[in-house]
């Protein structure tokens, strides 16, 4: 079996309690199929998700992160989801410098009444991360690979 075939990605989700968490609940109640590679964490608002949480998810073993927010205009704290979007765009740019593909850091909008969209976005994210392969960070030092001996 090839390594990619054996690879089951782990995707951590930060779900706003007012919208996507309720949407996920509905998806569960309706028994919509949803990949079990998804580890949801309930937050009060997408604006509560600090970039450090997302980076920590990677260093703790996540291959991808999905933040699910209320639709624009629907955030219960008014601007939480605009902040979340702004942070997401800047963080994706930053992660790119570390060789971490933007697809591993996704933000989308799911309301309480969109269980189908919830399962679709989660499956899409899991499949995108599966195609990218394991994240495999390395914090070790080691020696230069010998190119300084060239």
């Amino acid at each position, binding site marked *: 079996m090839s390594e990619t075939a054996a690879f089951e990605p782990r995707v951590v989700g930060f779900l706003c309690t007012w919208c996507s968490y309720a949407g996920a609940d509905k998806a569960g109640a309706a028994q919509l199929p949803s990949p079990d590679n998804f580890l949801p964490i309930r937050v009060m608002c997408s604006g509560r998700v600090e970039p*450090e949480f997302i980076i920590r998810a990677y260093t703790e073993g996540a291959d991808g992160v999905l933040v699910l927010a209320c639709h624009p205009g629907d955030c219960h704290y008014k601007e939480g989801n605009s902040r979340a979007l702004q942070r997401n765009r800047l963080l994706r740019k930053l992660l790119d410098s570390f060789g971490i593909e933007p697809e591993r850091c996704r933000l989308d909008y799911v309301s309480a009444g969109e269980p189908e969209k919830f399962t679709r976005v989660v499956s899409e994210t899991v499949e995108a991360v599966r195609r990218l392969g394991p994240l495999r960070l390395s914090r070790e030092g080691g020696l230069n690979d010998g190119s300084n001996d060239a």
Partner: protein
Amino acid sequence: MECDGKPGKPKLAVYWGGSCGGCEIALVNLGERLLALDERLDFFFCPCLLDRKNKDVEELDDGAIALTLFNGAARTTENLEMARLLRRKSRLFVAYGACASSGGIPALANLDTPGSLSRTVFLESPTVENPSRHVPGSSSPYCTPALSLPKLTGSILPLSAIANVDYLIPGCPPEPETVWSAIAILTGADLPPKGSVVGAGTVPVCDECSRIRGEKRLRRFVRFHEAVPRDGECLLDQGIVCMGGATRSGCGALCPGANVPCSGCYGPPEGVADQGAAMVGALGSVLDPGELAALPEGEMAARTDALFEGIPDGAGTFYRYSLAGSLLRRRRP
């Protein structure tokens, strides 16, 4: 030769790894207080200022040096060896300055593809002219017996990942007040808990900055060379990327005081693990949300990207001094 230094006085070592020498200059910047320091401590080992050899350190008993201030990054195998040697010989082993504490400028090379540092620097960099395509190596075929030099490390790690570090002194370089108060603490009776940052504050630089902060509703970021900062007003409010909010206090907000944005040299404040993440969080909260309100959902991301175009190198800006100490530490292999 009196390799033990002067008897009676506790020994001080100041050593450099991959560094620019600025941390030694910061020590000399103590001015006349250096004489007071010399009265209390014996400057035993400091290759930048004194002619004592590594061998003299090797011959000491373990723990014979009272205090070692190790500055610079561990860029070569020699730096690693010296860090471990000095750790063994010292009762207090201190990461002195940004490079030792969290990688500093040399650690920006961690953003290069691992293992390709020499190629980048000597062959591929756009300003390099190297027609013979010579890349310095760790041994020379032109000498008999063969000459060997220390190898480069694969990436820069913080000093604390190489040897057990007792305390850290931040700054690039640390300000004289920071150095002085750190040395007072380290030579005093009441030592703070191991692993503490000494000589600096705990809160963000903004807290000691005299510029007035208003409500932030930015419509664009301006690069520093394009801006003429207005007096008295927070630089970030003016769209200039100032790291004060994600940087440890202790310098007295020197740079914003001189019309220059803080570039983050004291590392993250107490309780913040990752300076870059903190900066993304901060900058993701200063744009005017009104910019997005009227747009259809699908266009918001592109509009946001356009607003961030004024920050062409986020990683190099937000982690300028703290990459090796950050959560990700280096580019993926």
